[in-house]
């Protein structure tokens, strides 16, 4: 994952970027709940000018999966 992507997510979560890795998700980042998940998705879509479907975005299991899906769209 590149730094720009990680920083974007860290900014939404308002946490230190060093806490994020590919395995980061709702179970190991306490700030990451469903509300923040959708804010993360919205920010990624806005920044990279792409769109995830709702079911696709709801199924992401961790940050690595989001990043991989993003790579497939840009």
């Amino acid at each position: 994952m590149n730094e720009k992507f990680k920083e974007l997510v860290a900014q939404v979560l308002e946490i230190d970027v060093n806490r994020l890795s590919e395995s980061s998700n709702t179970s190991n980042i306490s700030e990451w709940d469903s509300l923040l998940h959708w804010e993360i998705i919205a920010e990624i879509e806005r920044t990279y000018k792409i769109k995830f479907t709702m079911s696709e975005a709801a199924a992401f299991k961790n940050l690595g999966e989001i990043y991989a899906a993003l790579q497939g769209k840009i």
Partner: protein
Amino acid sequence: MKDVITLIEKISVQDQFQEQYLKGILDTLTDLEKHSLADIISFFKAQGFDLDYQTRAYILIVQDTMKEQKYFFDHKKYRYSTYKEVAGHVYDDPEYMRLYMVGLILSQYFWNIHRSMMRHFREITKGVSGKKYLEIGPGHGQYFADAMQNMHFDEFLAVDVSATSVEMTKAFVAHTLKNSSVKYDVIHKNFFDFDDSAQFDAVVMGEVLEHVEDPLSFLKKIRSVASENAFIYITTVINAPAIDHIYLFRNRDEVLDVVNRAGLSVVSYKEFTPQPSISVEKAIRKEYPIDIALILKR
């Protein structure tokens, strides 16, 4: 408690965020709340809504709310703005309304923001008394049943524009207060059809203003049916999208302004956020949902 645990397990299988969110949820509930939740689940089962139905209902409200939240993050506004746009697929669809109401009542226990509001209502209404009590839009009936248990009025009246809500409130109250002699009625009526000469010593309206196109008219109507020293309790939401929210309050001042314009004064207010870790200040800054409860006077 077996059904409560099974329900949580069924929900957790279907939604990864709820799986995380509901972990340890029972530790955050008081013994009384756990008992009430178990009773509600068993009441719904007796009504023919088994645990699978209740799971579907809860997941529906979670997913619909998240879909609207995403829309809100994208567009900074609610998807719909007129009653007509939402009436067809929500209020006038009995199957959807039943699912919605079942899901919503479960959220009173599962969602921090709704649980905090429910606790606040129970706390501030304790011992309030008078002759006539009115609730506008009881929805699932939880607050109406609470009012009858917490407050002392000669008669309690609830009015709802949805036939499904009227039916659910009647059933819920009949179940919750089965051995009570409190006088009450639940009627299917548009609040605006109320005669202004009817006067109530308490008027309660939880989360209705965001469902109407013209909140000012609703508040003016409340003022007209409230007796001089009436206890008036209103709640609404700020930046809180949902499938049937059409009036967007963007901040606290917009809520206070419409209240004042209706000729009502604010005695006090309290705001609630989705998580204890999200302060009101942060919720305002990031445009996260806020629930606001206001005690008003004429």
